[in-house]
């Protein structure tokens, strides 16, 4: 079941996730119990996912992020809103972002 995410919510990247661009791919490594595990948990973000990730600074609401994305990407307001909430829900379920 997806976590309920509202457009007024503010999220920040979890401190327990290490991120870095490597060979053109944006990689996320969750640190679980102090360990990054290459055999179990390594993720990559596509360019749209990275655009959202970079904006999760703990200050902007999802509404503000959506407005910024409307200027940067093609898509209707509803499409981008649905994509943002769906993506953030997934990250939240994986404990990669924290609600402020």
């Amino acid at each position: 079941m997806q976590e309920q995410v509202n457009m007024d919510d503010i999220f920040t990247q979890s401190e327990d996730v290490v991120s870095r661009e490597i060979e053109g791919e944006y990689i996320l490594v969750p640190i679980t119990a102090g360990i990054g595990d290459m055999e179990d948990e390594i993720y990559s973000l596509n360019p749209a996912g990275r655009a959202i990730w970079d904006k999760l600074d703990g200050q902007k609401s999802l509404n503000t992020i959506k407005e910024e994305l409307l200027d940067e990407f093609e898509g209707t307001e509803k499409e981008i809103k649905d994509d943002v909430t769906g993506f953030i829900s997934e990250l939240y379920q994986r404990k990669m972002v924290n609600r402020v």
Partner: protein
Amino acid sequence: MFDPSIREESAQEFSEQAVLQLVDTVLKKNALFRMRAHGWSMFPFIRDQDIVTIAPFIEPPKIGDIAVFKHPAYHCLAIHRIVGRYGDFYLLRGDNSRQYDGWLHSEKIFGKVSDLKRKNKKVNLGLGIERFMIAMLSRMEMLIEMRKSLLYFLRPFLKRRGVSISLKKSTRLL
């Protein structure tokens, strides 16, 4: 189309350079990094497909530590033992390798192997207090010969127990 997504990656998809950067990034966060070892250059203490946990150095590296570094010749991630020290420079060599990797400054060494698992079982041999002796034997060119002699005498017993012993030529680890 916008469509943001997150995808789970398989360890096999990463190039050697990418693994290097991953290890460097995670250790700089003072976290540990767990990954699968490839190769036989640290045989018998680390074997192909063992799972190694790499930790950042909290105190200066010591002789006998199994260091993780970018190999100066092959430019890939290597996991070899520190067998010598001169100031801030360290001499490295695989336990099953006849060649030294060369002297590396401590800044070039990412971390050390702090834990080892083989087939889901913890392996301690080579990481404990005996590591200093292993490093000394390696430096004195005696480690490989001693291992071979030991295996020669033990082979009949090990065969009887169904243990297969490999004397593969040394290869780079990772």
